[in-house]
């Protein structure tokens, strides 16, 4: 008991908490672990739900789900797993909301499409690792995308600087980068296959 208390004070990794919880089923362990990531859960919930109270409810509901799910599933990367859990919970909420309100527009909106698409895109694609293989793929990009990618990855500028240099809105810079990255990846994949 003393050892346990003592150990609690030391920096425990997420994995320690998870295995401890799976072993003892002690809610206090889980609560402590959850508190570490509560900022992330709340921010992500707010991103999707766009309502403070809904996001707060989500944080508590997700915790309840965690109590059950963590017993059933072997979790290695708790934080990303928790993120996925949070996002899925929010998507279900949005779907229910759509059914209640009958609001189709929320699913037609670009943001919804993009985050649904992102769900499948789990592998991380590194631009830098294939730097030399890019070839004409970069040339084939739309001007805004190419400019943004060059300034961001070559010159290592931040969004704000790119926006200042190019006159694009910061949000646009971000989306050019995301799309440019995706197009580069597709281009490279086409090259490999072709």
């Amino acid at each position, binding site marked *: 008991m003393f050892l346990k208390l003592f150990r609690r004070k030391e920096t425990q990794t997420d994995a320690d908490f998870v295995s401890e919880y799976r072993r003892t089923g002690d*809610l206090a362990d889980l609560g402590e672990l959850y508190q570490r990531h509560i900022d*992330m859960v709340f*921010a992500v919930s707010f*991103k999707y739900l766009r309502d403070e109270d809904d996001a707060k409810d989500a944080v*508590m509901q997700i915790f309840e789900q965690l109590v059950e799910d963590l017993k059933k599933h072997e979790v290695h990367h708790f934080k990303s797993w928790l*993120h996925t859990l949070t996002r899925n919970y929010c998507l279900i909420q949005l779907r229910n909301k759509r059914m209640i309100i009958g609001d189709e527009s929320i699913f037609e909106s670009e943001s919804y499409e993009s985050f649904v698409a992102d769900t499948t895109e789990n592998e991380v694609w590194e631009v830098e690792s294939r730097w030399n293989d890019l070839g004409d793929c970069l040339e084939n990009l739309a001007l805004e995308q190419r400019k943004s990618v060059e300034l*961001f990855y070559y010159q290592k500028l931040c969004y704000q*600087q790119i926006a200042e240099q190019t006159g694009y809105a910061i949000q646009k810079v971000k989306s050019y980068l995301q799309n440019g990255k995706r197009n580069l990846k597709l281009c490279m994949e086409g090259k490999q296959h072709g």
Partner: protein
Amino acid sequence: MARQKKQIQPSVEQLQKYVAGEMSFEEQHEIEKAALQNQQVDDTLEGLLLLKKAHIDSEAVANELRKVVRQRTRKNDFKIIPFYYVSAAAVVVAIGLGWWWTLRLNEPQNAIKYEEIATTSPESKAQPIPQTSTPPEEFVRVPPPTHSKPITKPKLSTKVLSKQENIAAHQSLSSEPDDLAALPQATSATEKPPRIASAAAPAQSRLLPEESVSFTLKGNIIDAETQEKIPGATIRVEVEDTSVKSDPQGNFVLPHVQRRQKIEVSFPDFESQQYVVGDTGEITIGLSKSNSLAKRPLPAARAQAMQRLQEPIPPKPWKEYKADLKKATETFIQQNPQIERGKVLVGFMVENDGKLSRFENLNQADARLFEEAVRIMEAGGKWKSTLTFSYKMQIEIDFD
């Protein structure tokens, strides 16, 4: 993929710093790169940016949520909370019982009053001698037995808390026979008989038309035998459970009383007396010394308590003893006609063997009178004591 492992996910604190605009361009670039690579970082960052835009203090909300989570997971408290409840309930019950018990003791139907047990000494009450009362030490009375005018204008000094309530119509005079007996006795003993309330309303009394009308009851508490005023007597209104004390003139005022309401007058060493409010607005209540106490059947424990409190008695019955004292003082005055006359209040101890000791001049009387008083008492011989300890007493000896 080795490179990828090197990538460190920015912490929420770093993201918050980014959102707050506290980062250099290079740092911002790193955060943005991480967000482009990692969906979780991207979602968190976007969420934080949206929260900032909505003017929501994400850290405050997070702390609030942490508190909720802590409450949710604090399982140990479940064992403790019922224990707190149980002990709190026990305390409440104990207080309630104590209160109820006190009420029961004060109940007039309960013939023996708590104060009476604590302070009375039935022996001395059995033969009450007006001029030389021997009250227990904690109880000091105003000595001069000047015959008082029973009815004086009551002073409106007493404070009463009273609720206006209708009293059940059936409340009738339920005082004990002893108390009733005391009343006529009190009346007959007086030269100028005070109006006793239970008697038919005399001419000067206020007549009240309706029972529900409340009025102010003024009264005077006197010693039924000596007609002395009794200050500090408790006048309690039943049901409402409010009470007042009589002032130094023995007067009291009870506002908002109603007809048929019962009041009870009590004073240590005296029989408490019940009175049912009638039409009279001004009353005099005579209390007689509680000589009847000994006659009452006592529960064994209480009887024992009484036994323990029995005062020592003089070598002769009180009446004869008093007569002897009187004779002795007269003789002394005859022998010393020029001496200043007065009363001596003598305090003394009766040892368990009946010897008298530790005489005190309680009223700062003339030293020669005190000396003589002590001589007379010592000449009277040993007292009778059933006690195992010394008992403090006082006696008044009148030289006139």
